[in-house]
């Protein structure tokens, strides 16, 4: 299909308010055609069927929806779940700074965390416990 992209291996594209409203509607109702989405989303926002159709088309091209021709109309369903999309957004932002060629500016915001090891964490917990005991003693 010309212009069609799968979301795999791509950054998640930015989404506008209407696109998110349409996507939320598809997530809620599993699959719908443009007229049905327009009835649920478009009328409330006083937008035309054409606008809803082009929004669905854009979401399809962005790889967020899939579609199947039923009779003369396309039936749209989601290609990714809400949770999956959100996880990819997180990955997408992180990949830009933690990838093989991290961006110099954004790298300054990100350090691949050198985690405290188990021993260190245990020592910190002991330290906190001692301090807590001291406070409790003082309170008594």
């Amino acid at each position, binding site marked *: 299909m010309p212009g069609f992209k799968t979301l795999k291996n791509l950054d998640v594209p*930015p989404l506008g308010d209407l696109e998110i409203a349409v996507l939320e509607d598809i997530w809620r109702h599993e699959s719908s055609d443009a007229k049905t989405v327009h009835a649920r989303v478009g009328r409330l926002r006083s937008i035309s069927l054409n606008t809803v159709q082009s929004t669905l088309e854009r979401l399809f091209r962005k790889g967020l929806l899939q579609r199947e021709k039923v009779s003369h109309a396309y039936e749209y369903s989601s290609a990714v779940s809400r949770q999956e999309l959100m996880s990819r*957004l997180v990955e997408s932002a992180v990949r830009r700074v933690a990838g093989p060629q991290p961006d*110099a500016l954004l790298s300054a*915001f990100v350090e691949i965390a050198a985690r*405290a090891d188990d021993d260190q964490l245990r020592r*910190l917990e002991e330290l906190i416990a001692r*301090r807590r005991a001291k406070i409790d003693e003082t309170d008594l």
Partner: protein
Amino acid sequence: MSSHAPLLQFALLSGFVLAITLAMLIAACERPLRRLLVRQAPKQRARLIWWLLVTPALAGIGYMVVTIAMPSVLHDSAKFAAACSAHSDSLWHLCVWHPSENGEVTWLWAVLALLMGYAAWLVARAARSVWRVRQTLVTMLRLSRRSGHADNRLHVVDVEQPLAFACGIGRGHVVLSQSLLDRLDAMQLRVVLAHEQAHLKHRDVFWRLIAVILSGIHLPGVRRRLLRDQELALEQRCDFVAAAAVGCPVIVAEAIVAVEKIFRHHAIQRMPLSMAFLSDFVPERVQALLSPDRESTSHLGSLLGFAVVMFCSLSAGWLHHFTESLIALLAW
């Protein structure tokens, strides 16, 4: 005034020389400076490091602007015109900043253009990256839901990874993942929120972005260490704000360790353009919270500021001669 070109060339070169000189001075004094900074309270330390990061670039830009603007501001002043009679037939300027009589060096223009072009390219690339990450964060916020918390800047996202960060360079937002919310008790959640709200209140993301951009003139190693020190100072400052909010620093220390335990089983990267609750400074943050209060009455900031202003003022003559010599040498 016959032409502004030599003055502009002089201004660019002297501004650049001043910025580089200050960056080198900071690099030379890095160790003692960092030792002094460690003794400061987090709030003051964060502010001082920010100034150390941005001072060379700001001083360079300031010097350029003053060199270019002063002659035009004082264009009609006979007093200042008389002060620079040596060149008054060609250029109006303050004597201490006067450009070379030799005028401009053509090929130096090419070098300066190259430097300016490189700087512009770095800024454009940074702006593009920031814009793209911003778009991603905006989409994430649009897909998030409001928590029902009194603070309407709090967003909850449905992801498996535990997330807690403050983002945005304006009013800002706090983003928490549902998975983290499910694992925190009420007090820990209060600590996390107070910490992130402190980042928003102080506009840490915005100021850090400025510091990251303007610190580009520093040596890479010095810049990395200073940015890291600044990040630790910002986190510790927000820890102390959270401690004041919940009434006890030990509770904050406990929350940091508890959140660390949750995070360690998941992806360990942090979000860009954001200040996350979890950083890789867990031991430093916990120990700072458990150590006795350090109310700083240090005048280190004023002293450093005074030293920089004095250096810039005293270096005006030196910088003027050096830049003139440099231009004369290049023209020779």
